[in-house]
């Protein structure tokens, strides 16, 4: 789960990393009070999860109340579904640093990435000036050692008070990385002010969904998702992505679903939604089909090749879902794996024509979506 900037900054604040004075607002009526706290000039920062907010004009510097009102209204009314704005004091900066922590799967390390050119996208820098990027690898079974922190700070060319302060931020950020089961924790930019104060100018924190059982702080709300369907399916625990094509996918397993997605594109078809109803969800045919039917798709394509997820159980679920939902569009099935013979009988009895080859099923779906007979 990716957190919003203001949530990441709350985490920073709680572990003792300084953040700018700021107030979160959800309507323009709260703006004046917020500005009273931060003073002018201030920054209006739209709280959405998309990257490149600055370029998209979703971060605005304003110098007085009139400008603030005008810009705030524009942001709330923009096409980007902005529901929350972080109102922050504008910090006077001398320098900016990049700092993040993630994992390196190859060496099995925690990886601290730092750069004395903050504020730019690290991916851009990795291409244009890779020599400027500092990487420090941490043994996850030992943890970050003090000498490593010092080495990062020296390589950043820091000295004096700033060196001490940034070293402290690195240590704290690492603790936050561990404590939050972070996939990524990032401060970009980390401001160094004229008074040599060190302040987190932005914040990213992405929490590992697999660690949810020990990280229960954040409730899943609609704001985190691009569409209603993605939000509803997340609540059900069904992996779902919204597209706007003709064929609704209801497939078992991530890789098979991705491959079916490819094959549809090769055949000139378009995908309405990606939906996985395998693994722990293989008994959720009814809910999966309901989600598919919310799309304007022309056909539902079901492809599975399961071992634990038994084909007969899936087939029964599908027939039950059809009986209950009476779908208004054709359904194409290609269900194989454990107990596939039984599955085939169940589907045939319900009037479906089971297919057994993924590509044949995909071709059928593409032609039916194009208007051909089933």
């Amino acid at each position, binding site marked *: 789960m990716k957190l919003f900037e203001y949530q990441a900054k709350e985490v920073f604040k709680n572990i003792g990393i300084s953040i700018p004075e700021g107030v979160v607002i959800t309507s323009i009526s709260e703006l004046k009070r917020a500005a009273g706290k931060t003073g002018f000039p201030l920054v209006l920062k739209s709280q959405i999860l998309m990257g490149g907010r600055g370029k998209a004009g979703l971060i605005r510097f304003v110098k007085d109340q009139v400008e603030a009102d005008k810009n705030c209204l524009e942001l709330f009314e923009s096409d980007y579904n902005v529901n929350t704005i972080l109102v922050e004091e504008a910090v006077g900066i001398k320098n900016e640093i990049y700092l993040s922590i993630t*994992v390196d*799967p*190859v060496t*099995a*390390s*925690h990886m601290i990435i730092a750069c004395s050119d903050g504020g730019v996208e*690290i*991916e851009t820098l*990795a*291409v244009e000036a890779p020599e400027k990027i500092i990487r420090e690898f941490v*043994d*996850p*079974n030992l943890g970050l050692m003090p000498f490593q922190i010092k080495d990062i700070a020296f390589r950043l060319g820091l000295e004096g008070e700033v060196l001490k302060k940034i070293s402290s931020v690195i240590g704290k950020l690492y603790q936050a990385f*561990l404590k939050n*089961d972070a*996939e990524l924790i990032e401060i970009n930019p980390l401001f160094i002010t004229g008074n040599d104060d060190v302040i987190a100018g932005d914040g990213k924190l992405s929490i*590992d*969904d*697999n*660690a949810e*059982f*020990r990280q229960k702080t954040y409730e899943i709300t609609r704001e985190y998702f691009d569409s209603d369907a993605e939000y509803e399916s997340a609540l059900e625990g069904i*992996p779902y*992505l919204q597209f706007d094509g003709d064929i609704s996918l209801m*497939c*078992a*397993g*991530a*890789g*098979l*679903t*991705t*491959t079916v*997605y*490819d*094959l549809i*594109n*090769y055949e000139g078809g378009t995908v309405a939604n*990606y939906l*996985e109803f*395998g*693994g*722990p969800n293989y008994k959720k045919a009814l809910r999966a089909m309901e989600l598919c039917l919310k799309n304007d798709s022309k056909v539902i394509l079901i492809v*599975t*090749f*399961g*071992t*634990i997820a038994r084909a007969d159980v899936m087939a029964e679920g599908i027939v039950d879902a059809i009986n209950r939902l009476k779908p208004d569009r054709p359904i194409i099935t290609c269900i*194989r*794996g*454990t107990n596939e013979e039984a599955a085939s009988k169940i589907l045939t009895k319900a009037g479906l024509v089971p297919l057994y080859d*993924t*590509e044949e099923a995909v071709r059928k779906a593409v032609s039916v979506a194009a208007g051909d007979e089933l």
Partner: protein
Amino acid sequence: MSIFIDEKTRVLVQGITGKEGKYWTEHMIGCGTTVVAGVTPGKEGQQIEGRTVYHSVRRALSKVEVEASMLFVPPMFTKDAVFEALDSGIKKIVTVADGIPLHDAIQIRRAALSVGALVIGGNTSGVISPGKAMMGFFPYWIERVYKPGRIGVMTRIGSLTNEVTAMIVKAGFGVSSLIGIGGDPVPGTRFAEMLPFYEADDKTDAVVIIGELGGSMEEECAEMKRDGLYTKPLVAFLGGRTAPVGKRMGHAGAIVSGGKGTVKDKIEAIESVGGKVAERPRFIGDLLKEVLGL
């Protein structure tokens, strides 16, 4: 010779008394696996499929010899179970758990590397040498899917594995050993680390890798081939050629970020060292015939 496991490999099952543990232990034995004992804390003395259950790995190893451990343990307890097996000196471990926390996975892999052990998984169906033995769950009884043969297979994609092996069998081949690397961003063992075993295996003529967008495991295989550490033919199927950038397609590892990990890059890397990439699963058979000169 087989890779990782054959009918003589002595296997311990951690989590043997659970529903999945019991069910798949029966099938592992049915496939030919030498299961020697099981472990479930608090259940010592029970018998599962005629095998004795012990409270702990240490207690089991005081009674029986074990080479490999199969974990049917929920993701939240997987780290502890892997470390328990490593602590007893077991050097081959398979975990099928889907949903191991990232921070646990990175600690597991680091610990395995530091003692020279192979941890396969998580988020995998496991490991199978068709006709000999398996650790995990494969529908080995479907011959059109798991026929013994001379093609090595490694996979990141559980749901596509049956599909691809069925294509290999349909083309007249069979599978020597299949290693399910798993779909997580930090698998315990990477594709490239298994290639030397296939290189040394006189029962494997070529290797098929089933990969997808995200990460760098396919590129690492290409490097092995370029460096001459793997010299047999390499054929790949890669899912996610048409996947939109930035969207996480199912597996947590399946995301293109910062322009890295696209299928296009992976295809270029593999083809640049003479490997072949099948655009569709059904092309794998023909590509295998081509690279083997049949």
